[in-house]
């Protein structure tokens, strides 16, 4: 797989470290979050067979975290963006 790093261009995925599901949101106030909210954030995953938004860290490149849109069945990658800036997604 080639991951289109928004900072470095298309690079082999072996340069990256996987960071998992990018749609999870940490409870806004950790002290007030209930056990159920923590359980959901820490453990439960949608785990789709198909389009997946996920974090990758460009460990052997720019060392930045990026958000990648990838299909878990075909491994097709539909672009990547700096974390939190999905609107700047770099096309494939």
């Amino acid at each position, binding site marked *: 797989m080639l991951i289109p790093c928004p900072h470095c261009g298309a690079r082999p995925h072996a340069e990256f470290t996987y960071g*998992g599901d990018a749609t999870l949101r940490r409870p806004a106030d950790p002290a007030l979050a209930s056990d159920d909210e923590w359980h959901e954030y820490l453990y439960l995953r949608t*785990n789709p067979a198909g389009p997946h938004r996920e974090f990758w860290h460009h460990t052997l490149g720019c060392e930045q975290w990026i958000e990648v849109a990838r299909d878990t069945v075909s491994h097709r990658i539909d672009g990547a963006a700096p974390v939190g800036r999905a609107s700047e997604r770099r096309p494939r």
Partner: protein
Amino acid sequence: MAGARNMQRYSIFSLLRNAMSYHRNWAEAWRSPAPKPAYDVIIIGGGGHGLATAYYLAKEHGISNVAVVEKGWLGGGNTGRNTTNVRSNYILEQNSHFYEFSLKLWEKLSQDLNYNVMFSQRGVLITAHFDAQTQALLRRGNGMRTLGIDAVFLNREQMRRKVPILDFSPTARFPVTGGLLQPRAGVARHDAIAWGFARGADARGVDIIQNCEVTGFRIDNGRVTGVDTTRGFIGAKKIGIAVAGHTGHVAALAGLRLPIESHLLQAMVTEPVKPLLHVSLSFGAGHFYTSQTDKGELVMGGDLDGYNSYAQRGNLPMIEHVAAAAVTALPCISRLRIMRHWAGIMDMTMDGNPIIGKTPIDGLYLDGGWCYGGFKATPGSGWVFAYTIANDRPHELNIPFNLDRFSHGYTIDERGVGPYPALH
């Protein structure tokens, strides 16, 4: 037993008798019936675990009005895609008890099923390459022995006699300091476990329905009433899910969200060579484990690719990584060619251990999340899952593996890495 029939027993005599007719008159090993409108129990998934569950439901609990529905063919998922290790050399007590129970079932399985599962107790050997690792293996071995499980520590000289093809040269990158052997562990024939359980279950009246994919669950007032399939609706009082690799996807049809990510694990075999390796070997200094098949091939595997995937095919960097570790451990195999290579989909749970038990939906039971340890567990998993379904409560052996353990903080984390599925 309703629907039961006489199974043709396999023996030297049946072999001779059938040789007289050029092996043209063997009875089919199991029927291919059309689904009935309803069953007492439906098991989703015709791999080793699902078929074992159906077998033990009929054998141990007298529940034979059972269907196993499989979207493809029997054993076509991870049952046929693994490296066939059977062992119980764990650290945590919950794991030790469960896998040892399963190993004991393996030891009698060929006789029990009247089907040769080719369980070869050649021993599983983990190598150690530095002092801390040697100490860790000693601790693991002592832990196993206190629970009555066999474990033998081998020093460097004993290792040299046991596996002379390891790198014992003075320039070895990872000098061998010792190893932990579980002599009763070994390897088995992967297809045979699916076929043996299928034949045994069928003989006890279980309907095995292939090419029948479950497309939805019918749930009435929090209780299952049946499944929609590509061959129509089938009713059931109880339903068991045993589809590891696709557990998240199938459970989602019932509205469940699980602590599981699906990942890739690759494996490969070399060209066949004469007997070279007499144990199943796990290399302590890298991601590499191997055993020699009866055909002479070295079957080898490594670590997960490390990202969510349902593709059943992996990427080349991991093959290179495993091959590099293989040549480091066993320099003499460096010129063997890789003949075949494949990947399976692993249900990776958040603590690296399976989920076997009840779900929040009445009558729906879950056996999944096998990470990459499912093959060895096949008979034990089927046995405890059948018990759980028949009695509507888990057996003592699978109480620790309940789905609630994550929300209650009772995870069973053998590697101690936390909720990162790709690291287990």
